[in-house]
């Protein structure tokens, strides 16, 4: 067996992160007037040719490398899902954190 059962700890942990994500989603919806134009620009920002060209081999690697490791949790869904989510969100998240830290983006 490679995983543990759902103990009360994990139930609480899941509830906590689900609540955290729901609150974040609520904030994003609340702030949509500012975010939607920004996301349109962000989409163009992501579609720079070299980023797409670099993403393709990265996606293939992360999607299929799992089968050559000892990690039973690293399958096509976790690999490709994390790669796609990372490509779509990581540049925005890192940029947003920087902008907040330097005071360019109000919370």
């Amino acid at each position, binding site marked *: 067996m490679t995983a543990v059962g759902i103990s009360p700890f994990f139930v609480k942990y899941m509830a906590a992160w689900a609540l955290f994500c729901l609150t974040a989603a609520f904030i994003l919806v609340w702030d949509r007037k500012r975010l939607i134009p920004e996301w349109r620009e962000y989409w*163009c920002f992501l579609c720079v*040719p070299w980023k797409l*060209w670099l993403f393709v081999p990265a996606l293939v690697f992360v999607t299929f490398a799992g089968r050559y490791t000892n*990690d039973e*949790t690293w399958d096509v*869904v976790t690999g490709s*899902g994390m790669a796609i989510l*990372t*490509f779509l969100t990581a*540049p925005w998240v890192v940029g947003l954190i920087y902008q907040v830290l330097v005071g360019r983006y109000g919370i």
Partner: protein
Amino acid sequence: MAAIALLLFSSSWFYDDYLLWRDGVYTRRWLGNLMLSPFIYVAAGMLWNLEAKESADFREGAGFRLSFMRADWPKRPVDTRFGPLVLISIPFIVIAAFGPLSVHLPRTWIEVKKKTEGWPRGLDGLEIGIASRAARVAIWVVALCALMSCGFSQGKKEAEALAEQYFSMMQGGDIEGALSLYSAGFYEVTSRAEWQVLLENQRDRCGAPKTHTLVSWNVFNAFGTNAGTRTTLVYDVQYSSCRVSEKMITFKPDDGKIQIQGHWLKKQPGKQGDKGESQVTLKT
């Protein structure tokens, strides 16, 4: 808060949730993943935020920056070249590749260890050799990137030499010589006679090229059919009485000589003698 939630969901909680659905139990790897994946996620975020500086030529030094430092981020960068980013992107690529592989060693290696050294001894045993394995992976990634970087640099150098030859011939009025630098593929689209007339008209209207500055470039290595190196160079050319933006595409087949495959000329608002006429733009 939304940024942190996206970070943790994308790098960790999405994975936990899917595995819970797949296996019916909460994965035992949740904590390790929660601690490691954000580093990989941030490295990827930094990598995709790299951009070449708008006006910096590669010859002038480090021409890159992080996009989010711009006041108008996340607007698309003006300069979308990858060439100046090749070297700086290596550490981020290494972190992204090193992270997962350092934790999840290749299966075959573990099976050999089990047989030869009496494993399994649980997860602790897996830590042995992680550093050497990861170092090998890192060396491969660095070597691959360095190789790519050399290829790009060589392709650019050869294309620039061809463009210099073109400008020097045009400067000396040797249009026949300049015409010999174009490929057969170019003349399939625009006949030699048509192109000669255009170059002569260009010379009559604007004079000889005085100075030229490389504004942007990119190199693409193609494999398989039509294998070779395609380089795009964009020059800001100051003629005697016009300023023209010239985009040249050169192609060097793996087993052949480099030639001009495409050439576009576009008149710019000139610094001197601007007659306000629109320059014909030809493409191949």
